[in-house]
């Protein structure tokens, strides 16, 4: 029981990260109907920017008060990663708008290769370890088994991750439902041509969608860095595929769906490695992706696609 609760907490933490990345996929798919293959690498870029800013603040400028440092890292990383997201859209996707569907998929894969190799060349291929910054936690439960006592711990780190995700999600939902930008986005999602006729700047809206997705991916990158303490140039691929799975599981195009899907994927991965095997945890994620797409293509909260002849 204690083990189960502990895994549940771990799963929710991991799921929050996946959920934040998944939002980027789901928004882009909703608005232009393509898989932004480079989004996982944008997440990786965010993690690297967070690491650089964190090191500059702590070791070069000598800031010591951790909450302020992390807040600055968060904001700077979101800003700079957004610039990356915007550039990727501008270079690789905008020139191909209205072209046939395979072309942006190929440029997206090309962009993903470019980003990975750019980071590998400029930052080196070796992993970057960062010692744990936030330690300690609250003990929720205590139980004993044959092996000894088991503590159920909710670390401060996990609390911060889950809380930040909650705050961001609330703010984000408000942005989509209440502001004119959100309205423009939903309009473009439904009918791009009609939205353009009614005076919505479609190109700008799409760019902003990429920027928002990248900003959330940057938050996920910072959390990943703090939670695992190790990043390298290749983390984007797996995290990207899993987050995409989350987006599909929740129903692509649906924001609450992306978050729900992220949490589910996080839980499944953690329970799979906790109760079955660690080696095949990625197989679990990939199998779920295949199963969901085959049997439940519209996801849990998505709307079924109507096939028109």
């Amino acid at each position, binding site marked *: 029981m204690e083990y189960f609760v502990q895994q549940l907490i771990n799963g929710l933490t991991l799921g929050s990260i996946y959920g934040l990345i998944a939002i980027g996929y789901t928004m882009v798919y909703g608005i232009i109907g*393509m*898989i932004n293959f480079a989004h996982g690498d944008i997440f990786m870029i965010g993690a*690297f*920017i967070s*690491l*650089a*800013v964190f*090191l*500059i603040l702590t*070791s070069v400028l000598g800031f010591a008060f951790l909450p302020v440092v992390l807040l600055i890292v968060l904001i700077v990383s979101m800003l*700079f990663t957004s*610039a990356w997201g915007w*550039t990727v859209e501008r*270079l*690789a996707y905008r*020139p*191909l*708008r*209205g*072209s*046939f*569907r*395979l*072309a942006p*998929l*190929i*440029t997206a*894969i*090309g*962009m*993903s*290769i*470019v980003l*990975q*190799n*750019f*980071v*590998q*060349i*400029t930052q*080196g291929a*070796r992993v*970057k*370890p*960062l010692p744990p910054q936030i330690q300690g936690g609250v003990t929720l439960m205590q139980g004993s088994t044959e092996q000894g006592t088991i503590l159920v711990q909710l670390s401060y780190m996990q609390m911060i991750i889950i809380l930040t995700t909650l705050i961001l999600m609330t703010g984000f939902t408000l942005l989509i439902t209440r502001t004119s930008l959100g309205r423009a986005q939903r309009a473009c999602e439904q009918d791009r041509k009609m939205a353009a006729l009614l005076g919505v700047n479609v190109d700008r809206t799409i760019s902003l969608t990429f920027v928002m997705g990248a900003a959330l991916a940057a938050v996920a990158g910072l959390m990943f860095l703090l939670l695992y303490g190790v990043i390298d140039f290749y983390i984007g691929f797996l995290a990207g*595929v899993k987050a*995409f799975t989350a987006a*599909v599981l929740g129903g692509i195009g649906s924001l609450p769906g992306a978050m729900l899907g992220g949490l589910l994927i996080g839980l499944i991965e953690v329970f799979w490695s906790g109760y079955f095997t660690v*080696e*095949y945890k*990625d*197989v679990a994620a*990939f199998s779920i*992706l*295949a199963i969901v*797409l*085959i049997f439940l*293509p519209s996801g849990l909260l998505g709307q079924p696609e109507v096939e*028109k*002849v």
Partner: protein
Amino acid sequence: MAGAKTNVPAASNRPAGAQRAAERGRQAPNIVAAPKKNKLKDSLRDAATAAMLVAVLGLFFIGVRTDIAPGGLDLKMRWTAWIVSILVVFGGRLALNMFVFQAHTPATQTLGQKIGQLGAAAPGLGKWLMRALFAFAVVLPFFFTTFFPGKDRQFIDLAILIMTYIMLGWGLNIVVGLAGLLDLGYVAFYAVGAYSFALLAQHFEFIGFWVALPLAGMLAALWGIILGFPVLRLRGDYLAIVTLAFGEIIRIVLLNWYQFTGGPDGISGIPKPTFFGLELKRGEGGFADFFGIEYAPIQRFIFLYYIIFFLALLTNFVTMRLRRLPIGRAWEALREDEIACRSLGINTRNTKLTAFAIGAMFGGFAGSFFATRQGFISPESFTFLESAIILAIVVLGGLGSQIGVVIAAVVMIGGIEMLRNLGFLSQVFGPGFDPVQYRMLIFGMAMVLIMVWKPRGLVSTREPTAVLKEKKRIDADMVAQGEGH
């Protein structure tokens, strides 16, 4: 360039005149466009924007580098590199603006038109070019041994590599180009082929390359059906993602099933191919001994080259033949319109499965060739990147175009490998400069640039299989790309 292109409807079933109208529409703005007055000012502003963007993007990547140091991570500032990169982008963008983008007629467009005119002026030219290319491929090993005796091994090895990708590209072209099924996990079949041969050779003494080749092909085809069956209902991007997932599952299983596949250690000691039972080795009983010629290590490379050349030609031949059979026409009908296809009574399930199976079979052949060439395989060689490269070759060359695959494979693989010969650059950029590490970066950039320049691939015409009266090439825009609607 986006403005002119977006007007072209993506639908493939346009009336005959629409094509010409679209062509005219595309050229029209070019004729009336007046030269810009503030060319210099605009160019400068644009270049400054680009430079600023690079400054922002590069700040934490080019300007700062984190390295592992005793007691944590170490920060290194590289402001010179950062400033140089900004200046290079500013200068490059300015030059491009002045001479290419804002010139009266953009250089890329004139080039495209010239190539088009050349093709129209001499309709037989393409055919002759292809024949010349084929003749060159036949004599290639001897060309290199005669004219580049010092570097022949390296060049023939490169030719083998390119030929392997051509074969894989042709195999994938059946699935993606003809049947219109977007497969991002093609490397799975490559892996199945390689591992089938390696495992068969490991467990059974008598199995050599030539026995294992058909077995590997059959096993890969079987896997093509097994993996194809669940995805029959999917199309477009979703199909791509599920095939990607299958490819990764196979790789992870190969990586973790230690008792069976050797896990990350891979399998080594895979037998070399024999020439009708003759091994290509030194001394008694070898190929050279039997024919009474002097043994040279290069003979093995020449032999390998001819094997893959033969296999690639087989792939091409079978594809071209299948295209004329009912099954090939069913594939193309499926690509154009799945619903219409079903209404006409074509069994879409069998059509899709045969496409998957035959594509996978050629992937399996190529895989067992890869195993015998390397002598060692491990899951490392079958990552998603490999699938992406093969798909990129097919799409960049022009989906469904056989010669396009050849051009794309030569340009992408050959061009990238040529970087290894650019050692002299290290004298310019300092001893730490290694052009090889930029390989994949340049590959990715080339993928993006070629797609933006020519979204339909380098070869922009297709030859329809079914014709009325005369055979003629059509524009690639007229062909559907497996979007499923």
